[in-house]
């Protein structure tokens, strides 16, 4: 007996579907909007079956977080209970000599790799989800939306928290050479704040809007070579009726970072948590690599909050370089006497200088705009902080993005002395927890590199960053500024000149810092 091959049409249809008359999705312009920032399909590493299996595994992120969780709870306990000698205290040594430097390396290469394994957000998220790794249905906490006026500030808010944390660190001299107890209190403070935010607000509101590191990792991480989780076929995502990647599916939570892989044009807000990858029922999301600096150069939507974050962060690192110079001590002392503030760093000087330096950067961009902008273009568009457009913004936003490699290099270079001089101390610090080793240990006094060589490395890092910034700025200028400028040569010269000046100033400051020492 044989059977016919044709399929019998089922009578069991969902009657709801008949009554749905959705408006058509807008597809016009979507291609041009994302063409430049879409990674090459061949760079999707999730096509590899082994990687796919790892990324699908719900324990993946848990296993990334777990070692860091152990380390940072050890930091807390050893910081409070252990020796007060910073180089021998595991808490202070691992935090300030190794971790900070490693985070910078990770962000420059991978983007938000740290966010994927962060023990602070990770711990709070376990509690919020009431699970270490399982896909749970009910979350703990109030699940509130972050207030809109604050959300509109975007990256400016976390830059504020980074400035505050840095000021506290300078005030209590927590980082250098390291204060174990204060380090513990600082970590406890971050964990507690994260926990409160995770319990009051939905998803990773803390990580997106508050975390002191998010603006640094977000901006500098855009140099990274990991594009993050992106759509494999945008058409399929646009047509998708369920948006599991945003709302959460059977296998994964909705994106904790408020990112849709189909409209992601940079790695700015991809926390590499793999939830979208797990939840997509169509296997339409991949983990893409990209050329370095792609997320700096390619995005067509320039964000004002990111631009201001870059300027403020540059201001902060320049301030830190300046305050290592000999003139600063007398200036700070003079200011403290007049303002009756008893301690370094004087907050007025701290904030004032950072704001001044960032305004100088913005002013330079404004100057380029005044010199170059075409008169026949209407730049102004009203709106709130995140939305509005103006001639100043038309120049400042792209220029700030172009400066990211210099800023990143500057931050990285700033961490190097501590790493080169003190990183070997982590080993005696570990031994010390178990009653071995002390200040006489050879590793305690060992250095990877000493001062004159460190300066060379720092200058090389700055040079590399400046070269990257020149390349990025040239691409950005050609694509975004030349069309709105009267004179292409003028705008190219001025933007590239600005990069060169910034690079040169930071390099010179490192040399000057060495001289001051």
């Amino acid at each position: 007996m044989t059977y016919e091959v044709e399929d019998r049409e089922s009578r069991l249809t969902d009657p709801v579907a008949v009554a749905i008359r959705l408006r058509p999705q807008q597809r016009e312009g979507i291609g041009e909007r994302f063409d430049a920032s879409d990674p090459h399909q061949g760079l999707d590493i999730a096509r590899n079956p082994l990687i796919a299996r790892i990324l699908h595994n719900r324990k993946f992120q848990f296993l990334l977080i777990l070692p860091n969780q152990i380390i940072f709870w050890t930091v807390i306990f050893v910081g409070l209970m252990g020796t007060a000698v910073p180089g021998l205290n595991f808490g202070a040594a691992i935090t300030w000599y190794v971790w900070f430097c490693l985070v910078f390396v990770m962000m420059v290469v991978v983007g938000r790799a740290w966010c994927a394994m962060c023990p602070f957000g990770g711990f709070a998220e376990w509690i919020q989800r009431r699970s270490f790794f399982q896909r749970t249905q009910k979350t703990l906490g109030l699940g509130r939306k972050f207030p809109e006026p604050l959300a509109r500030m975007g990256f400016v808010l976390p830059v504020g928290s980074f400035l505050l944390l840095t000021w506290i660190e300078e005030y209590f001299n927590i980082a250098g050479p390291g204060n174990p107890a204060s380090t513990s209190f600082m970590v406890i403070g971050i964990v507690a704040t994260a926990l409160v935010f995770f319990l009051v607000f939905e998803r990773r509101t803390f990580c997106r809007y508050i975390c002191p590191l998010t603006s640094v990792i977000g901006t500098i991480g855009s140099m990274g070579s990991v594009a993050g989780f992106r759509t494999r076929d945008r058409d399929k995502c646009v047509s998708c009726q369920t948006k599991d990647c945003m709302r959460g599916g059977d296998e994964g939570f909705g994106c904790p970072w408020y990112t849709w892989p189909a409209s992601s044009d940079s790695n700015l807000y991809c926390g590499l948590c793999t939830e979208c990858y797990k939840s997509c029922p169509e296997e339409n999301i991949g983990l893409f690599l990209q050329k370095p600096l792609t997320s700096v150069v390619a995005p067509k939507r320039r964000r004002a909050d990111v631009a201001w974050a870059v300027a403020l962060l540059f201001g902060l690192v320049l301030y830190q370089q300046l305050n290592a110079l000999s003139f600063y001590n007398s200036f700070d002392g003079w200011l403290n006497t007049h303002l009756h503030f008893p301690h370094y760093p004087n907050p007025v000087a701290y904030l004032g200088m950072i704001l001044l330096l960032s305004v100088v950067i913005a002013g330079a961009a404004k100057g380029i705009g005044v010199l170059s902008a075409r008169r026949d273009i209407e730049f102004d568009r009203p709106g709130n902080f995140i939305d509005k457009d103006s001639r100043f913004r038309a120049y400042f936003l792209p220029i700030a993005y172009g400066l990211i490699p210099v800023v990143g290099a500057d931050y990285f270079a700033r961490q190097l002395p501590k790493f080169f001089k003190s990183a070997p101390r982590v080993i005696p610090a570990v031994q010390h927890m178990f009653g071995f080793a002390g200040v006489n240990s050879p590793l305690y006094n060992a250095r990877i590199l000493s001062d004159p060589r460190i300066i060379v490395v720092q200058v090389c890092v700055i040079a590399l960053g400046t070269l990257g910034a020149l390349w990025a700025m040239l691409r950005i200028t050609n694509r975004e500024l030349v069309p709105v400028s009267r004179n292409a040569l003028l705008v190219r010269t001025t933007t590239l000149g600005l990069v060169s000046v910034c690079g040169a100033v930071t390099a010179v400051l490192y040399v000057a810092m060495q001289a001051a020492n």
Partner: protein
Amino acid sequence: MTQSILSHERAYGAHPTVQVLTDRCAGCQECVIRCPTGALSMETLRWVASADDDLCVGCRQCERTCPFSAIVVEGPMLVEPRIEPEPVHPARLLGDISEIRSGFAGWPEALAEAERCLQCPDPTCVRGCPAHNDIPGFIASVRARDLEGAHEILRRTSTLPDVCSRVCNQAAQCEGACSWSLAGGVAVSIGRLERFIVDNLEVAPPTRSSEANGLSVAIIGSGPAGAGAAWDLFEAGAMVTVYEKDATPGGLCVWGIPDFTLREELATRPWRQLSRAGLDLRCGTEIGPDDIDGLLFTHDAVIVANGAGVPLRLPVPGADLDGVVDATTFLQGARAALEFGGDQQGFRSSLGLASDDDSRTPNVLVLGAGNTAMDVARTARRLGMNATCIDWLDERFALARPDELEEARHEGVEVCFSRTLTALRGEGRVARAELARTTQDRADRRPKVLSENPEGREVDLVVMAMGYRLDPAFTDVLPGTPVRKESHGVADRRWTASGILANHNAVGQLALGREVGLWAATLPVSDRLWVVGDALTGPATVVEAMAQGRRAAAAVLDARPARPSRQDREQWSGPRRVLVCYESVGGKTARAAEAIADGYSAQGVVARVLPIARVGAAELAATDMVVVGSWVEGFVVAGVGPAKGMRAWLADLPRLGGKPVGIFCTYGVSPKDTLGEMRRSFQERGAVVVAQAAFGPKELDAKAGVFGPRAFGEELALQIMTNEATYVPVE
């Protein structure tokens, strides 16, 4: 619509404003495609949503559908006030059973109300309606004054629009899920618009398919579930025999709902039409649980739709005293007494109440304050009694329709919430009820009984009207019943996307739970035996029972079951449909599933391949054989078993009565008892596991030449083609 908005704006001045939080807006267009007025579009350069406040009416559909809470609407809702005809209260209640609720007075009222509908692109009211009526569709027809068109739309999903429009609790269903309602406003009067259609153009009789399909189906019960199933099967050309134990068809719609809510002529309308068209309706024929096997022998399929008719009784001291009756006894007796020429005095006497010459009005205590209790109390008022309903629920969580509660109070029924009966006292006959106060803080929490302030009441009659339960004699022979209407796991994202579940909306959660029952009705509980309505999911609503009946009818027509004695059994069943579903992580299991499907194709059988995430009751119901595969999770020997996703899927499986199932797994080191675990899950749900295979690295290598997935598919194909009548279960 535009006129309506403008007139509102003229009247109130204010206008809603839409704020898109562009920092978080991901440009997914979920709001754009669902905005009823087209107020949202995309801003191409930044790829974020952009709103035109002038077009916004404030329904907040965008807020509810945005996955990232990136849109906020503030300001008033621009909608005209709802047209609300007053109930027609009889001047003299005693003995009057005329219909209380009135429809729209005429076209102007109906059109004005229809204009309030936003015609939402993803209408939440449709999901809120248990039958999933195309509500915007029939309202659009009303606007176009096209009653025939409206009927045609209703007919696709409902066989009882005249009944449902009168008895449905719309506030907890379609109207509760109306966009205006979800936004905190006043819903469109969907029930009254549906009633307007059927009041002005009668429901047409069934149109039987010109080709008799030879399918013979027995339906037990003629309530709404039976009516839904019988109508569709009859129209499709099946030979339908309906067995009803009462003398009048209609079940609960007739004996359980008084005439002042639903006239008997409407409740029996479908049966009159079906009988006239030739359906075999056998009233006065009681079918017991032991008779089902006999029916399965003589019919290709049997649908059990006999409801949940066993009244609940409160086990309190004194419950066995004279003067304590259940709602069924009271309502059935009262119906006969209130009919034209009925013996009201005789009914009162049968309840042991004093005769007419006693000037004292009897006090009836009704236990419960749900819809049945309201019916009892209101009927008691029409029989000249004082009626008091007590319910231990807090009034905020009352189960009765809000309008019914209001009507009952208007008719003089005293409704006391947060009270419970603790004892009945009396010498042989009940004379006093002892009540305690209760407190309840959440709808899903059981009320607490308080010891303070107990109270006593003089009563002449107590009617237990807390509801009904299933007949245990039937549940014993119907495996898997009753089905709990609880939705597990992540809610269907299409439902989430519509916005009906936003803000933890109770109406949405109820609707989602109902889907479990609706889809369970499509799957047989055992070979060729379907159960629908209250008999499947316990006491529910008329519309839900009707919808389940229709789903079961569609499933029967789809499955084309054949009784063993059927001569044309093999030809009748036709080409077979196979579903191969899998849980894969690295792609190996998915490839194995594809290879199994290839094996089927090689034998001339078409197989559909789907990941289990996309396989629900609908897909399972629409297939003749299921093949299920999982990768093996675990570490070498520890925790080895089916993948977690597969385990969760198996735990949520509905009954698969008699369905043949093949199972397979792919493993690296050892499958251990993976297949056993899967097999037991299927067997617990009534499926017949006909074959199983574990594929290791060697078997998955297509070039190895050993027994692999493709050969497994071919073997299964041979089984379905040659051995379907007597599948041999794997042990």
